[in-house]
């Protein structure tokens, strides 16, 4: 397949671009294999540079001889293009649709993106898997998929022995199953199931059902829909926020992660977490529990390591789960925003413990954006095996290499951070759980005043830091070194 076959019209003049909160721009629209560009007419400065993979839904409306295309992006941005000429409009729309639904991994932009400032191999090998142990106590946290007990209650000696050897004699462990007891039972019909108490006598099983799959995706879509309607009355807004159930899912995920963390930290017990496949809610719980328990996961580097270990290498199927975002009209296959739910929970932690995470909201936003559409290979494919088949590490750049460049890193850091060796137990009361406005209302709410306030906080912190003190020291020493300075 050639990209050029998918592009029916490559350029259109005199296109009007509008986006909520920004002045409209008129210019030339240009479609390339991976990007949509719009440069304003006089100067030719590019005004928009949109990765086509970022387009989640394309809507077109024809009026007379012109048409309007609404692009709803995976990062929740909404753009409107007014295009003169009916045919051009239809062509552009279908080109964007075709290009944005190219599903072959190796046709994706990361395989073509070659920034001069980065080296290909950079950032790919900085997190060896063996690096991580739960060092808080002698206890460990394990994850797995469900046991294949099936309808005939099969047993597996090796599995029982494996779980048995983890615990010393008399020691107990917790199995946190992220499905309801009933759902776990039902899984037996399809060959799955749970660990029966009789075969795993030292383990105590706790069921904490977490939402996954389609209901979670629908929850995300409903929330985004509610957020995009500024005309809602207060009652309608609260009603829609409630019926989306998103914040309930946030609370459930945090509570379950806290339970897992508590089993380890307070009960000093070993914990095994699993759901069905061990690639979705399982990772949500184990990754969150580590952020809560372990200060080293709350640094910028440590958090990247956690993502690499608990999400990417653990085989969260990013390609399937993040194929579409909240706006897509396409028939849903396996999309589910588990990774977003994780980021939201981390954001909640950062609100309750504003000094305890080394990174700020920007990193979380950037991770969300890149998981759904990226110039980097980090979130490509569904697991390590696929990544190695596609030679992702050889042929694409790592997101970490980009984020860890000093000038980028500077933007991601939390100026208020100070190392906190303690476990951070969040409040999970509904009054303490907030809507992540920075993400869900990023393109909708006016944020100028909040940004300025944040810059002011940053300035105050910097002023208070060592360099500032040095400079004040310098000021003093200057006045001292020039004895005539003050006299005149």
């Amino acid at each position: 397949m050639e990209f050029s076959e998918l592009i029916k019209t490559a350029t259109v003049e005199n296109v009007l671009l509008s986006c909520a909160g920004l002045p409209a721009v008129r210019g030339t629209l240009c479609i390339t294999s991976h990007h949509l560009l719009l440069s304003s007419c006089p100067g030719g400065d590019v005004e928009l540079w949109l990765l086509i993979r970022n387009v989640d839904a394309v809507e077109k409306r024809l009026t007379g001889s012109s048409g309007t295309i609404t692009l709803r992006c995976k990062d929740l941005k909404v753009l409107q293009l007014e295009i003169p000429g009916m045919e051009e409009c239809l062509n552009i729309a279908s080109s964007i649709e075709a290009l944005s639904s190219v599903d072959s991994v190796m046709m994706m932009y990361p395989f073509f993106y070659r920034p001069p400032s980065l080296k290909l191999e950079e950032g790919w090998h900085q997190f060896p898997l063996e690096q991580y142990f739960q060092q808080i106590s002698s206890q460990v946290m394990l994850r797995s998929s469900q046991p294949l007990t099936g309808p005939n209650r099969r047993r597996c000696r090796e599995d029982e022995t494996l779980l048995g050897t983890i615990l010393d004699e008399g020691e107990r462990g917790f199995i946190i199953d992220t499905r309801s007891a009933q759902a776990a039972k039902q899984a037996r019909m399809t060959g799955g199931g749970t660990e029966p108490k009789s075969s795993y006598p030292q383990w105590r099983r706790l069921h904490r059902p977490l939402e996954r799959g389609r209901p979670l995706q629908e929850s995300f879509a409903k929330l985004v829909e509610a957020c995009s309607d500024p005309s809602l009355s207060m009652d309608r807004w609260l009603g829609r926020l409630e019926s989306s159930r998103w914040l309930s899912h946030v609370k459930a995920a945090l509570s379950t992660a806290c339970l897992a963390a508590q089993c380890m930290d307070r009960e000093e017990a070993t914990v095994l977490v699993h759901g069905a496949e061990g690639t979705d809610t399982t990772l949500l719980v184990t990754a969150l529990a580590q952020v809560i328990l372990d200060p080293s996961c709350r640094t910028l580097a440590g958090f990247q390591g956690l993502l690499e270990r608990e999400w990417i290498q653990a085989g969260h199927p990013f390609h399937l789960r993040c194929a579409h975002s909240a706006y897509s009209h396409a028939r849903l296959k396996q999309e589910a925003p588990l990774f977003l739910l994780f980021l939201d929970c981390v954001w909640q932690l950062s609100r309750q413990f504003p000094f305890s995470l080394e990174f700020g909201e920007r990193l979380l936003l950037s991770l969300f954006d890149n998981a759904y559409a990226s110039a980097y290979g980090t979130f490509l494919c569904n697991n390590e095996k696929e990544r190695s088949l596609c030679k992702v590490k050889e042929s694409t750049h790592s997101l970490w290499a980009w984020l860890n460049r000093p000038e980028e890193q500077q933007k991601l850091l939390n100026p208020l951070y100070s190392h906190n060796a303690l476990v951070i137990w969040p409040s999970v009361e509904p009054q303490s759980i907030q809507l992540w406005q920075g993400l869900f209302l990023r393109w909708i709410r006016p944020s100028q005043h909040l940004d300025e306030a944040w810059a002011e906080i940053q300035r105050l912190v910097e002023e208070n830091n060592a360099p500032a003190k040095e400079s004040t020291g310098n000021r003093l020493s200057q006045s001292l070194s020039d004895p005539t300075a003050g006299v005149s």
Partner: protein
Amino acid sequence: MEHIRTTKVEQVKLLDRFSTSNKSVTGTLYLTATHLLFIDSSQKETWILHHHIAAVEKLPLTTSGCPLVIQCKNFRIVHFVVPRERDCHDIYNSLLQLSKTAKYEELYAFSYNPKQNESEQVKGWQLIDLAEEYKRMGVPNAYWQLSDANRDYKICETYPRELYVPRTASKPIIVGSSKFRSKGRFPVLSYYHKNKEAAICRCSQPLSGFSARCLEDEHMLQAISKANPSNRYMYVMDTRPKLNAMANRAAGKGYENEDNYSNIRFQFVGIENIHVMRSSLQKLLEVSGTRGLSVNDFLSGLENSGWLRHIKAVVDAAVFLVKAIAMESASVLVHCSDGWDRTSQVCSLGALLLDSYYRTIKGFMVLIEKDWISFGHKFSDRCCQLDGDPKEISPVFTQFLECVWNLTEQFPQAFEYNEVFLLQIHEHVHSCQFGNFLGNCEKEREELKVKEKTYSLWPFLLAEQKKYRNPLYNPDFLPELTLLEPNTVSFNFKFWRNMYHQFDRSMHPRQSVLNLIMNLSEQNKQLEEDIKELEAKIKQRNGQSDVVLVKEHQQSAHPAPVALKTPPCFKKEQPPIPGNDAVRTIEGSNTADNRYSELVSEFSKAEPAVVSLEYGVARMTC
């Protein structure tokens, strides 16, 4: 005090409202003439002013004792368990008596003695001078004058003595108009915008019934519109829902008929009355006070209470008002029924959006003195200072503070004061510790001689203003008299956790950005000052003895270390966050405080080998 039968009870348990089942501290309960005091085994003191108590409830006896639940007007709820029923009964009865006061003279303010001498007391009351404030706005001027019509409270008992009216409004017009307005509250100036030459005026509803007219009242409104040279049209805002206003016509009250008044534009803005607000708050508190709420129960409870809808309605009304003034230079007359609840909310919030002075600490005090205290918001009735009609209680002023809080969230740099300031004012509106909010109007306060017998709150707040400063405040945020334009889309209004759960520590962020930033900015200021002081000293020294310094200068090859070796300005920085441990303490970050632990603790009970959950509080000091 004759009401106190038992002054001290030992072995009382104080339960935590939101943490895991039956977590409690044990201590001793004391009753004083003014306070209830609980001192727990770690010597931590909890003081509750009798005036703050809204309700006391005795629950059925349990095995551990007799539960006593106290609800306070500042939304604190304390849950005691008293071992002996007899003691509980005595305390219950005493509190019932002590929390209800029959006479103003028995309120705390009349016995509170902050050890100030008389001249300090007088000076305290002079801190806020409303005549000075009207001068700041630019009145009296060619169009507006001070009227002495109400000098002896003859025309309106609930207005202040000094009122500003259009120069063309003669005394007969004022008297006539006042007779046509509910409670005699005729149209007067509330705020004057000197750049736009437009005014916010306030009054009560007209006694128009279905067809009554009053020429003097019509003249009064005309005088107001003529007092504005930039726009001869004026808005009349009726802050009530249209249906309520229409219903009032049957009782001989109502609203202005546009046909009878020239040059007015009439507008309803639909803020509900005090009864709706009271029951809305009641519903909100029921929801927020429930333990173990799911997110959906909370959100649907929040929705059903209607509370945020009412907050939004007040802000929307204020935005309508300021647009008329800022965009059209039109004067606006605001009223509701009696002109002391919704009218106070909308006028004061409007002025706050128009004039940055009211976003300073001192300015906010002036605003409350002007639009709430002097114009007769019935603080005594609304806050239930005396044992009176429960139907008069309403959280109108609390709503005003909540509107302001929402604005501070949207404009973090526009306000000199922080959330703590708003909470502190709320505390004292109900405490009856200071004289400012006593009674229902100025006349009543004069009769009570509050200025001689009690103290003003404002000098005390000003003295500790460090606590109330917003460290991000930028006085140049908006030039003077430029409009603050809030976005009133629903999602901008949030549940005010720090108000309704101020005393439920487990629910708050475990690290406070406000405190940290306040300390940083305080520290930075201190450094700056030290530098200035040193520079001044150097200057002085240079001036006095050039020789010495030059000598020093020559001795040292690198002059910089002279300053750096013994840097006097550095002595304050050893702890990066000075003194206050609490700032960085992650207190309350404890599994026992959060309900996700319950399942495991049940499990642990069954098998005693497991380490107890009382593991101590995660603490970190830096």
